[in-house]
């Protein structure tokens, strides 16, 4: 049990936060999504989503681009390779912990 608990302490805290985990999970299922879609899907306020995306971008897990679709301005977010790897690792660590304690 001790080792598993120590494993929990090694969890990536950037991803472990529930709102950020949801954002990263949504982005892991699509090629890219814009700010409005993420806001609605995650049920977050604009300011909250901006703050979480900022942290994910800082960690190199998410790439944010301002672009246009036709004449419509979009803030498009995409999970980077590092973000994808971090999510996979996080899932493995959680699965190991749940297996060992369940």
């Amino acid at each position, binding site marked *: 049990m001790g080792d598993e608990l120590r494993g929990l302490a090694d969890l990536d805290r950037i991803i472990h936060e529930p709102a950020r985990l949801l954002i990263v999970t949504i982005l892991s299922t699509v090629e890219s999504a*814009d700010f409005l879609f993420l806001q609605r899907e995650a049920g977050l306020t604009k300011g909250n989503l901006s703050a979480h995306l900022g942290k994910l971008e800082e960690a190199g897990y998410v790439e944010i681009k301002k672009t246009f679709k036709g004449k419509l301005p979009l803030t*498009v977010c995409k999970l980077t390779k590092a973000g994808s790897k971090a999510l996979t690792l996080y899932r493995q660590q959680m699965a190991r912990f749940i297996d060992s304690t369940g």
Partner: protein
Amino acid sequence: MGNETAQVEQRIRRYWYVDGFGELVGGGGMCLILALYFSAEQYYAENTLIGGILQAGLVLVLIGGMILARRLIAVLKIRVTYPRTGFVEYRMDRRNRIFMSVLSFAAAGILAAGIVFVVRRFDFIDAMVAMTGLVMGAILILKQAWSTKVARFYFLSAFSLILGSALSVSGFARGYNLALFYGLMGIAFGISGGLTLARYLRENPMSTVAGNGG
């Protein structure tokens, strides 16, 4: 955790159908084009110039219609859907696509073989329209209803099966039979898509505040 991811994936797949444009333009539009095509093909005799051109041009009508429908859906989504509920670019999952295509073709093949069997035993049905109804119904179930769990696709699929079976014993000329099938399916897609779009617009009015900041 995997289950939650699957739920998120399914919700995001369903998002493509949230505004009804797929049915309205892709389904309804394509079916009405095919209805016009088959009635024109039946109207003009095979040995006339227009009849000959029409017979040779089905593939072009299909490809042209699909390209046009895709472009129109993209334009409508940019103008109506993305400003209201956001933009998503879907990932091309090649393995899943290949699996679903193989499954669809296998189902269509089994259905076609079944139709041939029925036709040989009972010569009073128009196999072509029955097969069209069955294949369209099967594709709707396999590719749309099953993968997205959008309930209205089950109804459209059932309608396609019933319509194809009913028209197969109607005794109309084959061209008119197919035109009637696609015409009525086009109307069904149109009603389904129209109602979905009306509900979507009612539930998601355009925000006066720019919602896409980051």
